């Protein structure tokens, strides 16, 4: 089927098998391989992209459901020489080792900070109607959908905290 996806502010016409996930459309049809396939089951978060400002697992959604949506992938957040604040902080804090979960971690963290700013509560938020504090526990809880087997978790939390505090 013929569809057009808006990826990183670029219109991308595609002719796809309707079974194609957004993840496989990005990787196998557009050659944008920054978004990673870790499990294809929505269990690891490596394929996280941002759709209309919300983070989603791109392996759990079909590409044909996203005509007209604004899709942002890791490639759209920054590039070597022009890294986003989070990307730079991940490098400085060593918020990764092998780097395979990193695209998903950074897309997830980018959208997560917006959720925090908008006052969304999480499982560890004490007061569901008040402001969520920027604690390590809040960051860790909200980032627990993104697995990292190298376990850079303490460094991921530190990198995100630095960027969030810098914005505060």
């Amino acid at each position, binding site marked *: 089927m013929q569809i057009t996806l808006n990826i990183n502010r670029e219109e991308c016409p595609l002719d796809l*098998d309707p*079974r*194609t996930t957004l993840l*496989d459309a990005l990787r*196998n049809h557009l*050659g*944008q*391989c*920054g*978004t*990673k*396939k*870790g*499990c*294809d*089951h929505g*269990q*690891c978060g*490596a394929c996280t992209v941002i759709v209309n400002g919300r983070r989603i697992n791109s392996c759990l959604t079909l590409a044909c459901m996203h005509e007209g949506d604004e899709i942002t*992938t*890791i*490639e759209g957040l*920054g*590039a*070597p*020489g022009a*890294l986003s604040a989070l*990307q730079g902080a*991940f*490098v*400085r804090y*060593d*918020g*990764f*080792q*092998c*780097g*395979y*979960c*990193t*695209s998903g971690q950074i897309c997830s963290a980018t959208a997560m900070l917006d959720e925090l700013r908008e006052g969304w509560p999480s499982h*560890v938020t004490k007061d569901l109607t008040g402001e969520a504090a920027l604690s390590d526990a809040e960051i*860790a*809880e909200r*980032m*627990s*959908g*993104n*697995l*990292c*087997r*190298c*376990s*850079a*978790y*303490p*460094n*991921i*939390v*530190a990198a995100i905290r630095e960027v969030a505090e810098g914005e505060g």
Partner: protein
Amino acid sequence: MTAHHKMDEPDRRNRLDAMAQGIVGVGMDRPDGPEKVSGRAVYAHDGQVKDMLHGVMVRATIAKGTLLGIDEEPVKALPGVRAVLHGPRFLRNPAQGAAGEAPVQGSAEIAYFGQPVALVVADTFEQARHGAQSLALRYDEAEATVAPGEAEAETPEDKQSATGDLDAAMRDAAFSVDRTYTTPPHNSAPMEPHAAIAEYRDGKFTVRASCQMVKYNLDELADSLGVDAADVHLLSPFVGGGFGSKLGISAEAVAAALAARELDRPVAVALSRPQVFEATMRRSETRQRFRLAADADGRLTGVGHEVLVSNLPGETFSEPATQATPFLYRGENRVIGHRIARVNRTCAGSVRAPGEAVGVTALEIAMDELAQAAGVDPVELRRRNIPEEDPSRGVPFSSHMLEAALDDGAERFGWSDRPKGGTRNGEWLIGCGMASSSRVNLLNDSAARVTMNRDGTALVETDMTDIGTGTYAILTQVAAEMLGLPPDRVETRLGDSDLPKGAGSGGSQGASSSASSVFLACERLRCEIAERAGCAEEALTLKDGHAISDNRQQPLAELLQEPLSAEGVIHPGDAESRVRQASFGAFFVEVGVSAVTGEARVRRMHGSFAAGRILNAKTARSQCLGGMTFGIGMALTEELMHDPRDGHIVNRDLAEYHVPVNADVPQLTVNLLEERDPWTNPVQAKGIGELAICGAGASIVNAIHDACGVRVRDLPATLDKILPGLPERAGREG
């Protein structure tokens, strides 16, 4: 120019300390970092090429038997399907680490549930997946053995040893422990599933794959395909984690290459996550009996460690769970026993720190039980049992940092001021535990080429890999240090089988072996530069692109009329047998055990480690964070479950096999101790990638005991094992 060096004698020159650039050891950011955080790093399945086809592997759904037939025709008739492949060259299981030859091959004989037996290739991934799911297999099923406890066990003579009289030592002991500990199978679960893209042109294969040890993998792949290694080009510049599971070539790489040749088109094959669980490697479950005999002061007089592990028929690897037991603690009466049950389960192979990860963990739980029995502080008990020399081989230690790590860790954690075990905090019972850490230190043959250019840049080249371990950073730093260049003037190229053959990443020897080869190449270059500058190499200072000698300073470019290149090759030698080499460390942890549910959570955890010279403080710390977190998983959640009927892995995905998530891991602290071990290699670095898992789980299990009095001897320490033993009053308090 090639400089060879064999480690027969200690190298006490500490040459890296005499250099002037000041970059080795610094916590420099990874040079590959910007590519990784921006999604530009090219992993195996990212190197997509024009006209590429997609392949999906098909698994056997019986545990043992013969594949009688495959109904190919209906699948070949599906839209987009190009081929259904199977046959004698398909791999039964991956090659074991450093095999350098094909593992058992062939689709016909099935040895475990999940064995990859066929490949469906189609124009798109969706078509190939549909074809693979539709493929019908016909079997002649045989009776399988899937339970290690019921299987026949081999007792290889060379894996048994005994000195003195352990039975007598146990009888005469003032305090003793005789307990059996069990650990379940584990999966490495790297975030990148095993994948390959293969091309075949003019009789030669180009394969991009996810490999830990390229020099061995090249030979394994060529042997599996039945071609000459010279006709295979293997590329693995970025590897999305390995932890042992990518030590040897695996089924998808061979299948992709066979398909590319058959169809004359590039073919990509990635294992699905369930296939990673079923068809790569598992760490064997272990059953470990420990006998510890001690005198009235808690000094060990005897140590017995007898293990039962398992593997497929015909596999040479067997989890070396007793590896550190012969040297970690004193005791003149010793028994080592090792049995291997032959089962029809997914192949057992290396998972991060094969041997010590589970062996030291069980030993360190037993030591905690001994400390309790003897009424001795657990740190003090370990201090009293540090041997003067390797008690089994009678050779000296190259360097011994266990006591320093124990003392440093205890102080930083605040061991003497720790909360009293069982202290109540809301629903949580608080407890603290500790454990020693040790991992044998290895060296492997490794080669690298370093080229200095006239523009003041240098290039480091080796087929060594960076699986997240920081190889790009540390080899850049060693070359920059030796050649007096800012690190941004040095480029490191890795993971290409056309480059000099490096050690590969496995067994924690990759950093020290490959860094030594770069050191040797640079030393050779320094000699050449010194000659041109008219001074001895020892009198030459290289810094910021300048050569300084006898109060003369000149730009390096003036000494180079053309690019200058040298190769360095390190070889293991007599140092291995003349001394016992090991890395050491200590873990300290505070846990909370819910008095309501029995859930255990790690509240804080500290590790102090000594691993020779630290080449990059930042990446070395990250390796330790990773190891400690593997320990958290091993202690609390990770358990591969085999169905007792057919051995299939029940929890074959990341929703059911529980690796630690961000919220499971507190802000871990790590301290790396200064050490120079001259016996190890010319850069005096030791293995660090696996050290921090060896015993980590024990510190948590010991802390759980301190918190609530429940001693878990069957890992992981899940709620069901803790809840029944909680103190009667615990649930009603608070």
